[in-house]
């Protein structure tokens, strides 16, 4: 075992690279899958929570909407108001462990991690998505309703696509948070990056070297993911350019407007 810092780091890496690799893979899998399922949970919760109630609706509908909204807001408050590490213990030892007892240990850990992250992320996503929906100009919904779309059609064709574009940074942020916070799941023995690092460090009692490597891996993960999300966000902004067509009778004539030509024209197009 070399005594210098970098010697220690390269020694640990050469000995435990497969451990780090597996831990990284599991961290990525559980945080990505958990974020996706969390998004779906949040989406359903947010859509249910934004259903408008009219005075003329039947009392049964009003009552069930109110009851549902109580249940959903309790879920959101409870899961946003307690730490994920505690939620993991409560859910895992409160039945999840037994429910998954048929699985091999590694898969059991992965499944439990995905379930816990999904439920936890769902509570945050629900509020992010609801915020996104209510931040879209109400005129968009009215415009859609006024041409005869139903509430559902207006929501899915007009409001929701705009909401998603607006909240894309927050959704990405949840993913980054999950990459880091999945580390708390080591308390229920999920073999993610932090858990693996702890085992590696324990073997030679080289905590500094091992966790230096771990920190670098976490940073590379989150930094890369952040860059990728930026690119996706920019893609979602829509194209900058468009083509001005000639008249319908002479449709071959056309001018292509791009952001560069716009600056040449000099702001003639708002």
């Amino acid at each position, binding site marked *: 075992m070399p005594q210098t810092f970098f010697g220690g780091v390269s020694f640990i890496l050469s000995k435990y690279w497969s451990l780090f690799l597996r831990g990284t893979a599991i961290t990525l899998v559980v945080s990505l899958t958990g974020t996706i399922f969390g998004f779906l949970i949040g989406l359903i919760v947010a859509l249910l929570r934004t259903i408008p109630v009219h005075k003329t609706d039947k009392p049964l509908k009003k009552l069930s909407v109110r009851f549902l909204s109580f249940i959903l807001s309790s879920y959101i408050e409870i899961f946003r108001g307690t730490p994920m590490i505690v939620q993991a213990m409560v859910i895992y030892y409160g039945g999840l462990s037994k429910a998954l007892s048929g699985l091999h240990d590694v898969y059991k850990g992965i499944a439990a991690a995905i379930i816990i992250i999904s439920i936890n992320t769902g509570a945050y996503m629900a509020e992010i998505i609801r915020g996104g929906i209510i931040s879209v100009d109400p005129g*968009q919904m009215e415009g859609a309703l006024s041409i005869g*779309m139903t509430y559902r059609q207006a929501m899915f064709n007009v409001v929701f696509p*705009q909401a998603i574009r607006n909240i894309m940074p927050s959704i990405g942020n949840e993913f980054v948070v999950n990459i880091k916070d999945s580390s708390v799941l080591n308390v229920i023995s999920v073999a993610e990056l932090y858990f693996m690092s702890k085992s590696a460090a324990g073997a030679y009692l080289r905590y500094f070297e091992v966790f230096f490597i771990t920190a670098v891996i976490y940073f590379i993960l989150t930094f890369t993911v952040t860059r990728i999300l930026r690119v996706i966000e920019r893609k979602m902004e*829509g194209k900058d350019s468009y083509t001005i*067509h000639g*008249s319908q009778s002479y449709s071959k004539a056309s001018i292509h407007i791009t952001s560069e030509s716009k600056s040449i024209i000099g702001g003639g*197009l708002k």
Partner: protein
Amino acid sequence: MSNNNINTNNSSNAILDIINLEKRFGNNLVIRDISMSVFEGEVVSIIGSSGAGKSTLLRCINLLEEPTGGDILFHGKSILTDRKSVSSYRAKVGMVFQQFNLFNNMTVLQNCVVGQMKVLGRSRAEAEETAKMYLDRVGMYAFADALPRQISGGQKQRAAIARTLCMNPEVILFDEPTSALDPEMVGEVLSVMRSLVKGGMTMLVVTHEMGFAREVSSRVIFMDSGIIEESDTPDVIFTSPKKERTRAFISSIL
């Protein structure tokens, strides 16, 4: 040219009958008691000072606001009792907004196509053909591929009018269509509206463009604090109104 044929009260060809309409926001009675009819081919302008309830009236007619009293009949049938037919009713009663409300996530063409496909069940090809025809009519064919954020206010409003026309409505409600526009863009929107009047479109227009109201309306309604104060031909309303309030309003704006 003013058009002086006031419709006789033959309710058989009334598209809309508004009966003792009332709208209350909390304790605030915005529309007190309004009864009126809109007949086929009519252009009815609604004028009056801000807060008179003009926009609220239009929004009630399109059911964007729920009336708290009275009834609205479409071809003699109440639209307030049957919630299921609201969508098909709205498709037949178009609405043009002050803030345009073009769908920001769609191009001008898609704005005109989506309703036809989702609401009227038209095929994409058919919907695009109709959309292009109406975009051409409002002079927006060239900008079919542009997003709302890439065009001017006047262009947005013309595209919004095309979007409404694509649904083949029986009547179009205009809620201050030029109020959010720069002065030089008001003209292009008014000229599109003028061409609709020539085409025989039934229109209900809330407007502050008095010249326009006077020129194209078959009837002008003056609203004041939630009621119809006076309803008559544009000539009468603008030159010899019978009511004192109308006279005060007209003299304050001319």
